[in-house]
């Protein structure tokens, strides 16, 4: 009791802070769970693919410098405080007898983070590297296919967002977390040693469950109260923050990899593509086609479109609006989770904020196509995906590739605010 009293007295005396050093981190950026969230890493393997242990590697930029030794399996990793450009130097005097860097291998070399918190650096040894000389057309074609794959995985997430917007009017800022959840669940189930296919299935179902719980526990009661659309949007922001940090609480701040994340590119006709991207493309096309059939041909699909068009009229004609919205949330959650899994393979890597990284691209896709239209979301997302990948071909820096997509969204809003497939009256 005495200490408390003394503390209160001290408080009165020290009106202003005497303890600047210990006040909470004043920056609003999320806390990190390791010393550094960003890592530069790689594997040292010789010409014969044998790992090279015990080699010193130094990473530096400006005031920061750190070095490490490669482990027995040849892996090395250095944590760095911020993303940016670093100089990575391999100390050639520590290389084992008979192994030397390949002819033409730059050392030290400059490396730059793009969107992910992990940057892998490859040093080649032995006979030398074949410097790949891709001609422009080849590169364009490859990026086009990669962009299509990216755009379709964005479409999975944005179709759900658009359906939710169409039926409830809510712009859901927590959709990014629904994307993250899919990938994190696959990682969690895989860590429990469940079979891979089961992990994916359970993760997609988990996404659906999250959608169900969200609607049943939060959005339906809010709709009942007649809460306006703007307050609901802010509630979704609160939900996004809470869920994002709940995921970080359990998952940590580091980047993890799903099984089979590493794959070398294969050649199909003129296009070289990684098998993961190819799978992603096929899965997205199949799922979107299925969704299209359901929306166009079944009673449920017709009911959904009717609710999206005019909820009051739909209710008057005997459609159970609430259960349609519930199904839309479940399907939206499942699609977002699947999109998240594919996004984890596309990046590659799972992080707690991977969904919020593409949330704005999802919004851009939905807005480009026209808010509330399913096909618009599909078209818009594919455009955004291809645009993001193609801008790097035309000389935009890799760390600016999202800027192009966001910029194009703003420009389209200037000239065609209802989006490509939207109807004029939606803009109001």
């Amino acid at each position: 009791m005495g200490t408390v009293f003394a503390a209160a007295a001290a408080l009165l005396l020290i009106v202003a802070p005497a303890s600047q050093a210990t006040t909470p981190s004043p920056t609003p950026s999320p806390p990190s769970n390791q010393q550094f969230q960003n890592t530069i890493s790689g594997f040292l393997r010789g010409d014969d693919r044998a790992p090279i242990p015990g080699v010193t590697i130094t990473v530096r930029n400006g005031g920061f410098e750190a070095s490490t030794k490669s482990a027995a399996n040849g892996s090395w990793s250095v944590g760095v405080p911020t993303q940016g450009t670093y100089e990575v130097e391999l100390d050639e005097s520590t290389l084992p007898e008979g192994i030397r860097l390949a002819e033409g291998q730059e050392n030290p070399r400059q490396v730059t983070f793009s969107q992910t918190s992990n940057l892998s650096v490859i040093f080649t040894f032995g006979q030398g590297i074949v410097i790949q000389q891709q001609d422009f057309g080849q590169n364009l074609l490859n990026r086009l296919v990669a962009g299509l794959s990216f755009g379709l995985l964005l479409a999975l997430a944005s179709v759900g967002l658009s359906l939710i917007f169409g039926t409830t009017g809510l712009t859901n800022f927590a959709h990014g977390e629904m994307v993250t959840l899919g990938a994190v669940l696959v990682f969690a189930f895989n860590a429990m040693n469940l079979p891979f296919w089961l992990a994916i299935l359970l993760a997609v179902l988990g996404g659906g469950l999250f959608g169900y719980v969200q609607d049943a526990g939060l959005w339906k009661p809010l709709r009942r109260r007649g809460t306006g659309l703007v307050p609901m949007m802010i509630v979704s922001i609160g939900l996004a923050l809470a869920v994002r940090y709940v995921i970080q609480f359990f998952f940590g701040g580091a980047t993890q990899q799903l099984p089979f994340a590493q794959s070398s590119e294969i050649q199909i006709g003129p296009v070289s593509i990684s098998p993961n991207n190819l799978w992603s493309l096929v899965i997205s096309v199949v799922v979107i086609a299925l969704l299209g059939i359901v929306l166009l041909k079944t009673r449920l699909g017709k009911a959904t479109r009717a609710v999206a068009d005019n909820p009051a009229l739909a209710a008057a004609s005997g459609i159970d609006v609430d259960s349609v919205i519930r199904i839309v949330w479940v399907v939206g959650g499942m699609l977002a989770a699947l999109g998240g899994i594919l996004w984890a393979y596309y990046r590659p890597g799972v992080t707690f904020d991977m969904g919020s990284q593409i949330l704005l691209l999802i919004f851009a896709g939905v807005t480009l196509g026209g808010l509330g239209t399913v096909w618009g979301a599909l078209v818009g997302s594919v455009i955004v995906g291809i645009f993001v990948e193609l801008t790097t071909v035309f000389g935009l820096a890799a760390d600016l590739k999202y800027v192009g997509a966001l910029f194009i969204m703003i420009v389209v809003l200037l000239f065609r605010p209802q989006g490509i497939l939207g109807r004029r009256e939606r803009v109001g």
Partner: protein
Amino acid sequence: MDFGFILSSAAGELFSPTTAAYALAALGLAVHFGYAGLLNFGQAGFMAVGAYGFAISTLTFQAPFFVALLVAIVCAAIFALLLGIPTLRLRADYLAIVTIAAAEIVRYIVTTNQLTSVTGSANGLAAFEGGFYAMNPFPEGSYLGMNNRDFFIRVVGWGLVAICCVLVWLLMRSPWGRVLKGIREDENAVRSLGKNVYAYKMQALIIGGVLGALAGIIFTLPRGAVQPANYGTELTFFLYTCLLLGGLGTVLGPVVGAMIFWVVLSLTQGILYGLIESGAVTWLNTVQAGQLRYILVGVALMLLMIFRPQGVFGNKKELAFA
């Protein structure tokens, strides 16, 4: 657990320069959202424009303090114009998406390695605050337990908050402010009275944006550094939490909201760390305790919006939404 230390840390947050910066930026949001009904989700972008406008003109162009300040304000006004032209005629959710996208564009541009010589990319810029502290009228010594530098930035920061509060209060009780509130309530009604709704909205966007830019400068000065990672979308959402805590359509609401926000964050951190250190809580580590606080921010934002959207001071009739 050292309660005295926890309490004095929390009390220190009450008048810290960061709280002043949050209060100013939230006041800008109050002009946007509380008074004009504009759903600006890009306040972090305005803060970044202010901070970088100030830092770049000081470092790259060697501008003196007041010129750099002016440049930052002009940059924020131009940013508001660029944002407003495509979006102010559109519905609220479009404005929200475009402003959040524009803020992210700003952050990507100051982060890119292409402009490292100007923006310092991810490391940001430092050592631009000399011109400000050179004007410090307080001789060295101890002021209420602070050195003259810390004291000066607090005096300036909170002085600025006070001046801006008075200005906003005067503006909002002027005819101009009444029209603005009218637009918030019913845009078409105001338009039918012959007012140029678009121009009023644009003026409100610029005023709030300039407040955001000033907040960005106050935010960076005590650190002597500006880093792009600080200006992510979370910053805007924290500002909304401050604004909703205090009350939307009020002048003092955002200021008090920012104070509550930082004091509560400091208290929860102190108590959680104390519990962990004393061994009373073993299911948490200090990193997770930090994350727990941000979970609480998210939950608080949701609960506020659902159960008390008018905040501590607000009047339910003054809400920007029905």
